[in-house]
C-alpha cells in the first residue's frame, strides 16, 4: 500500500487572530499541523503497519511549512515533500487541489490519499473532493471508519459520517479519503522520531517541478478571491444573572425569560 497524506500548517486553535492590511496574523502563537490532518497521518500509519508499504506526507505552503512535515516524519511517515513556490500564493481550494493532484501523480503508484476533512483556517472542506476529481479517483469524504481494504482486489469499505447517520460504502481504489475525529487516536511523536525528523532532508518542489504553469495556480488559477477579511463583529452581550433562593425559583425566572424571548 502506497499512501500519501496531505497536511496543512495552520495557526494554533487557541491563537488570537488579527487582521492587518487585509492579512491574517497570529502574533507569536505557534503553527501546528491542522488538527484534522493528525487523524489522516495516524490512519496512514495504521494501514502501513497492517499492509506494509509506504506513507508519504506532502504539504503545500511557505518554506516554514516544512515544520509540519517534520511532525509527520517524527510520528513515522517514511518520506515527505514540500510544495512551495511564490506562484502558489493566493491559491483557492481549486488551485490547491490541482497542485496536490500533480504532486500525487509525480509520486506515482499511489493507492490511497488521506486528508483531514477540512483545514481550520480556510474551513472549506472542498479540497478532498476536488483532488479526487482531478485525479479521476474515487472520492470518500467524512470517513469515520475504514472497515477493510483489500490491496490485491483494490477495494475499500468505509463508514461515512453524514447528517442522517453513517453511510457504509464499498469502493474501488485508488481513492481520496478525508477523515474525521473518531476514526483513531493520533499518536504523539517519539523522542527518537523527533531526532530522526530533525536530521531528515525534505525535498521541495516548485510549480515547474510539477509540470504546472504559473497561470494555473495561485491567485492566477483561483476561481474565487477574498478581497475582504475582518474580525467577526462582537455581539455586545452582557450576561443577565438569574438568581433565586432555590433551584425552582431560578428555573421559573429563567423559563419566563426564555418564553419572552420566543425561543421555546
Amino acid at each position, binding site marked *: 500500500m502506497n499512501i500519501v497524506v496531505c497536511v496543512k500548517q495552520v495557526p494554533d486553535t487557541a491563537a488570537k487572530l488579527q487582521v492587518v492590511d487585509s492579512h491574517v496574523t497570529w502574533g507569536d502563537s505557534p503553527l501546528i499541523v491542522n488538527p484534522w490532518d493528525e487523524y489522516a497521518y495516524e490512519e496512514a500509519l495504521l494501514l502501513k503497519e497492517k499492509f506494509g508499504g509506504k506513507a508519504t506526507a506532502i504539504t503545500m505552503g511557505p518554506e516554514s511549512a516544512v515544520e509540519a512535515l517534520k511532525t509527520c516524519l517524527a510520528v513515522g511517515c517514511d518520506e515527505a515533500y514540500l510544495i512551495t513556490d511564490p506562484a502558489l500564493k493566493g491559491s483557492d481550494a481549486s488551485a490547491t487541489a490541482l497542485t496536490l493532484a500533480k504532486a500525487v501523480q509525480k509520486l506515482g503508484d499511489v493507492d490511497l490519499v488521506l486528508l483531514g476533512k477540512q483545514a481550520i483556517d480556510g474551513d472549506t472542506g472542498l479540497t478532498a473532493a476536488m483532488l479526487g*476529481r482531478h485525479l479521476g479517483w474515487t472520492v470518500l469524504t467524512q470517513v469515520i471508519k475504514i472497515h477493510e481494504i483489500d490491496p490485491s482486489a483494490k477495494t475499500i469499505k468505509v463508514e461515512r459520517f453524514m447528517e442522517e447517520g453513517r453511510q457504509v460504502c464499498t469502493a474501488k481504489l485508488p481513492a481520496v479519503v478525508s477523515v474525521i475525529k473518531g476514526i483513531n487516536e493520533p499518536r504523539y511523536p517519539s523522542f527518537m522520531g523527533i531526532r530522526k525528523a530533525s536530521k531528515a532532508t525534505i525535498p521541495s518542489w516548485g510549480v515547474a517541478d510539477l509540470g504546472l504553469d504559473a497561470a494555473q495556480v495561485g491567485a492566477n488559477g483561483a476561481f474565487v478571491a477574498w478581497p475582504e477579511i475582518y474580525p467577526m463583529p462582537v455581539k455586545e452581550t452582557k450576561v443577565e444573572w438569574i438568581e433565586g433562593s432555590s433551584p425552582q425559583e431560578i428555573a421559573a425566572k429563567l423559563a419566563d425569560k426564555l418564553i419572552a424571548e420566543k425561543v421555546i
Partner: protein
Amino acid sequence: MANQVWVYIDQFKGQATPSAWEAVSAAKMVASQLGSGVTALAIGSGVEGIAQQAFDYGVDEVVLCDDASLLDFRVEPYAAVFAKVLGEARPQVVIGTASTRVRDLFAYASIDLGSGVIVDAVGIEVKDGGVVVTRPVYAGKLLCNEVAKKGQPLLVSVRVRAFPLPQSGAGKSGNVTKVAPVLSEDQLTTKVVDYVVEEGEVSVDGAAIIVSGGRGVNGPQGFEPLRALAKVLGGAVGASRAAVDAGWIPYSHQVGQTGKVVSPDLYIACGISGAVQHQAGMRTSKVIVAINKDKDAPIFNLAKYGVVGDLFEIVPALTEEFKKRLGK
C-alpha cells in the same frame, strides 16, 4: 432556462431536507436583485414531489433527474448530472444548503464546470452585478467576503439556519423539465451498502434548541438530566470536546471547532467553561444560557442569561418547570 439563479434542492431518500428550502430564500433574494427568476434542480430517486414543493416556495421552474440509480447520494453520478445540466445552462450562480452532500457535489462538479465554490455562506448580496458572499473562516473568529474571479456558475452553499424558510404559497405551478442520468451503474466506483442511523435522538444539525454538556456533567450518567430537558424542549443534546474525549457521549454530539458548528435559537450550556474552540461552534446561537459553578467561566461572556450554580439542581428544576409550562 434563462434564469441566472439556480437552487439545488438537497434531499435524503426522496424527501427535501428542511434546510434545502432555506437555500430557496437566499436564491430568491439574489434573483430579485439580478432581475432573474429561479430554477430549482433536484437529483435523486422518487424526487417528483419536490417539484410542487419548490413551486409552493416560489421557484419559477424545476429541473428533475429522477432515477433508481440515484437513490443514495453518491458524488460521481450526482455530479455528472449536475455538471451536464449547469454546463448547458451556465447561470451566474447556483445556491444550495451546506450539507455534507452539497459540499461534495459542488466541489466535485466545479472541476468539470471550471467554476468556483464558496461554502457556508452566512450572507449574500449583489454588488455591481456580481455576487458577494460572506462566510466565516478560522472557526468563525473572522469573516471573509468572497467573490468569483472567473468561470460560472459560482456555486454557493448557505449555512444551515443562516437564511429563513421562504413563505409557502400553495397553488403555483410551472414548467418541469426531466433529464436522464449521465452515468450508468457499471461506470461508478462506489456502492452504498448500508445506512446506520443513530439511536433515535435529535441531531444537533439544524436543531432549534440544543442542551449541551461539558466537563461539569462529570460522567456519562451526567448527561441524563440534559437529555430529559432536551426531550421536554424538543431539542438536541450537544457536548463539549472535553466530554466527548472523556468517552461520556459519542462524537456526533460534539459542538465546536473539531465538532459541529451550530446556530440554534437557544443554546443551554451546562457545565461548559467555554474555551475558544467551543465558542467557535456555538457563538452565533440566538440566545445562549450558561449554567456553571464558576462565575468567572468564559462562557458567561457569551451568555445572555447566566446561572451560577449546580447543574444537577438547576437542570432538573428547569425540566419540571417546562413540563408544567408546556403542558407535558
